[in-house]
């Protein structure tokens, strides 16, 4: 292990300029530690985004050596054994500056996919009982831990090819709600995800699943949505 890391960092918005920094290597150092060191010790004008530093908030995702990752939980030793790092902003989102992307279009697609809980009118005043072992609850459980980091969205080639495509995160969110027995907005949700830019556009490459830091499978969620859309179409809906 060398004492110093050689880190190339994307600067500006154009994808053209990279600044190189020599960063001291430390035990158990994360990629976010590296970026923070650069900003505090070498170049205070560097823009990047983070909040919780413990893998909960989903704000520190970047492209690390060509792959989208959550930087706060990515150890340098696992991604740069040779001591060389290239840091870029996430793909498929407009770059604000340096390592910061504008996530507004990403979250706008959650809204377009009807990723908002819509209570059923007949729920009543008491708590709705959802048995933990029920199939719908188990399906929602498998997808519900998304932290909205955008890693899957950046990893998805279909998003790159078809900018309208809702993307794995928004569709994964829709799938959790399709399996929420308390939700009353299913018809509108299935119609939203059945469109040309919806679940049908997924090629099942599995990049989202491969890169999801929470080990979720948006690919499986999208497959579930395809089945739900087909069932709805058979019954005259969607």
């Amino acid at each position, binding site marked *: 292990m060398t004492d110093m890391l050689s880190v190339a960092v994307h600067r500006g918005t154009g994808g053209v300029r990279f600044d190189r920094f020599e960063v001291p290597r430390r035990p158990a150092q994360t990629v976010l530690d590296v970026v923070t060191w650069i900003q505090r010790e070498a170049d205070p004008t560097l823009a990047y985004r983070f909040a919780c530093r413990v893998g909960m908030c989903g704000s520190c995702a970047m492209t690390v050596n060509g792959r989208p990752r959550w930087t706060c939980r990515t150890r340098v030793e696992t991604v740069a054994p040779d001591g060389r790092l290239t840091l870029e902003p996430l793909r498929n989102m407009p770059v604000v500056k340096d390592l910061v992307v504008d996530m507004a279009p990403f979250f706008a697609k959650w809204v377009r996919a009807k990723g908002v809980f819509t209570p059923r009118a007949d729920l009543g005043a008491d708590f709705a009982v959802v048995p933990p072992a029920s199939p719908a609850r188990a399906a929602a459980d498998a997808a519900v831990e998304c932290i909205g980091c955008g890693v899957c969205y950046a990893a998805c080639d279909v998003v790159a090819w*078809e900018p309208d495509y809702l993307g794995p995160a928004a569709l994964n969110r829709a799938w959790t709600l399709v399996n929420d027995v308390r939700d009353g907005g299913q018809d509108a949700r299935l119609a939203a995800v059945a469109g040309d830019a919806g679940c049908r556009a997924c090629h099942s490459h599995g990049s989202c699943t491969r890169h999801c830091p929470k080990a979720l499978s948006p690919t499986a969620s999208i497959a579930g949505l395809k089945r739900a859309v087909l069932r709805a179409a058979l019954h005259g809906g969607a």
Partner: protein
Amino acid sequence: MSPARLFLLQRASAAVLAVAVLVHLVTILVAVRGGLTAGEILGRTAGNLGWLAFYVLFVVAASIHAPIGLRAILREWAGWRGWSCDVAMALFAALLLLLGLRAAWAVFAA
């Protein structure tokens, strides 16, 4: 037609094609193994209502399946969307249906 209906039609036609293509290819392999000529093959298919029904089903499934898939490819790779693409795909479906049914009829009525 809604995108969900198109999806359903494409999946259903794919299911038909999966069987039809297999039967078609196996039949070709078996038929030519013994050195049959085109004339001899047509001699066996002519007037056979079973083969006519099979190929009509095959052609209808292909005419549904191919334009829907092509539409998705054109959307993604050529950025062609909207009504003009849908009209072009409907015409393509009609062309496939016409040419396919003509071929199926030729095999029956040879």
